[in-house]
């Protein structure tokens, strides 16, 4: 199948005077067109080293990376730029260049010595800008954009390179949640519609679980685990990789939870969304919801609004908000 990037028995790391510092070893893996692959791992596990090695910015200690069956380190820089594009975490300053001109720099490997853009180049630039939805940003100076807008432009620049492989290194790091979701959706769309091979490293475990076709999980021990997100969840690799970081992966919820012990117990009654969110509030406040205990809360929705009835042997109180409810339970202690 459309395999583009082949990693063969790759060992990555740094060669120091005192010997090699291996970050990860023995990676054999194929990246295909039309797939969005997310690279996850705790800080310091070597995600950036892996990305740098795959994008030919750093030599591997052992093994090879093949791009279209050619050793990536044998491909001339300019040709490589037409096959593989990069978007990085680093903030671009770019002086007084407009966004349009920055996206235009994506045509760098295609233009002559003077860098003059032809009609075809302008077409590609416009397509790239439209694809990421940055039409309004085109005329603005890159230095005036917000972090999210700037990353959008850098993604458009990578698109303008018209490469089959796109590699993105933690580009969502500075973005707020809606922007992060937007970027993930965009990446997925690009993989599917443009048949691109996309590898992105990220810290967003939950978004990666939701959007990627495949996960690369790089734990601190350097043993890269690969599979569909659900595969890695089911065989426990996912939970294990982050266990050392002091957080617990709740397999049922598909999310990370803190492992603080429960402080109190409560019995909950009610229905609908009120009940669901009251439960969430209890979870957050580390109050365990059990079927039968002395302290009970019943949630009701009336025409006037919602109310929470707290009752136990000595206490009987009605509250009008979850915040108040939590205060009451805490005081009961």
């Amino acid at each position, binding site marked *: 199948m459309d395999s583009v990037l082949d990693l063969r028995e790759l060992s990555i790391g740094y060669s120091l005077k005192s010997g090699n510092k291996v970050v990860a070893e023995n990676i054999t893996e194929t990246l295909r067109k039309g797939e969005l692959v997310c690279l996850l791992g705790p800080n310091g596990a070597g995600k950036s080293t892996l990305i740098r090695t795959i994008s030919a*910015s750093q030599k591997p200690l052992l093994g090879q990376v093949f791009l279209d069956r050619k050793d990536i380190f044998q491909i001339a820089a300019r040709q490589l730029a037409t096959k593989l594009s990069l978007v990085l975490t680093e903030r*671009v300053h770019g002086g007084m260049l407009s966004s349009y001109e920055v996206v235009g720099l994506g045509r760098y490997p295609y233009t002559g010595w003077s860098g003059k853009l032809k009609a075809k180049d302008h077409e590609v630039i416009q397509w790239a800008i439209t694809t990421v939805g940055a039409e309004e940003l085109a005329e603005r100076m890159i230095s005036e954009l917000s972090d999210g807008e700037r990353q959008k432009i850098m993604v458009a620049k990578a698109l303008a390179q018209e490469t089959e492989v796109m590699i993105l290194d933690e580009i969502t790091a500075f973005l707020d949640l809606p922007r992060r979701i937007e970027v993930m*959706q965009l990446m997925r*769309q690009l993989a599917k*519609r443009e048949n691109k091979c996309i590898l992105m490293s990220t810290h967003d475990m939950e978004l990666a679980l939701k959007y990627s076709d495949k996960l690369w999980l790089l734990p601190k021990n350097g043993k890269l685990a690969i599979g569909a997100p659900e595969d890695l969840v089911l065989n426990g690799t996912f939970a294990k990789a982050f266990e050392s970081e002091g957080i617990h992966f709740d397999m049922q919820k598909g999310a990370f939870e803190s492992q603080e012990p429960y402080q109190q117990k409560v019995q909950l009654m009610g229905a609908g969304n009120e009940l669901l969110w009251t439960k969430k509030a209890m979870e957050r406040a580390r109050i365990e919801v059990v079927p039968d205990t002395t302290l009970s809360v019943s949630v009701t929705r009336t025409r006037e609004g919602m109310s929470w009835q707290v009752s136990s042997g000595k206490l009987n109180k009605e509250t009008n908000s979850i915040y108040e409810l939590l205060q009451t339970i805490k005081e009961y202690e």
Partner: protein
Amino acid sequence: MMEVKQQLKRPLRVQETDPPKPIKVKLPARARMFIFPLLVIGILILILLELGVGTVAIDVNGVVSALFGLESADPTHSTIINELRMPRTIAAGIGGAALGTAGLQLQTMFRNPLAGPWALGLTAGAQLGVALVVTSAAVVGSSFLEKFEILSNLGIVAGAMLGCLLVLLLMVSIARYVSTITLLILGLMLGYFAQGLISAILHFTNQSQAKVFAGWNDGSFAGVYWEHFPVLIPLAIIGLISGWLMAKPLNAFLLGENYARALGMSIKRTRIITLGSAVLLAAPVTAYCGPVLFLGLIIPHLARGLFSTSDHRILIPAVMLLGCLVAMAADLFVHLPWERHFLHLNAVNALIGAPVVMWVLLRSRKMRTFEL
């Protein structure tokens, strides 16, 4: 897929039936191309003024007839124009263009808005090189060098280039470990250090030579004569052309080294050619005109402000023309028929330059807050 599509605020238009409307981009720089002919006209007017204005005033007719060797030409005027004012004007034009271009190259390569041949200590390196050549000539016996005038001419330029290159290599190697401002302070300190060394060196040379050197050390376009041009002009032309050829890579460099490399640019090649070109431009000008302060630093900012862009394909020709213009204007101001001649070129440069530097410092958040 449907679900994802609905969530998007602006759905992707990649394969939709209606073709996307072309984005109309109005870039300010494109609307400002008319400035180029204005700069050329300005330069032509300044050339006429430079040739005509001075303690001996010569009108336009006189200038034209002297220039073209017409019979009506006044022989005194011809001598003044051809032997004094013409070389000075050419030197100012070339010097301004060269320093402006070198300044732009250094600012982009060091990613430092206040870089320039003088601010980074390149001028000081060149001065020191010249001082060493001049004193060694005095020690070896100036008759040796005087016998081969072209050799002494070349020797001074070679000394300047070597000094300039050594400082540049030093600056390149420390640039990655220090902040933008620290680098500038290091450059200025290097300048003072070189001045100190030069004074010490001059202490050991004879008085007449020291006097000549002190004059040169003030910086002026008036010390350049026809015999210097066979060295100055070819070097400047090579520097300007190689600088211009690097416009495209310099644009990529604005995105930072990593992005530039990922676009297929050779960092090493760009760096060697661009910095080499900066040395070819800054060193010979310093060798013949002495240290000319501020011009290299401020011309790129004036060009960016005028054209409202950082695109080097526009900026490089812009700094050449603007450098030419500003240097001639400063030189003209110095040589106006003042009653007393105390005004130096660098004083005029400082009057224009220092406010520009302060403006850059205060305007840029990065420079203002001293953080990177």
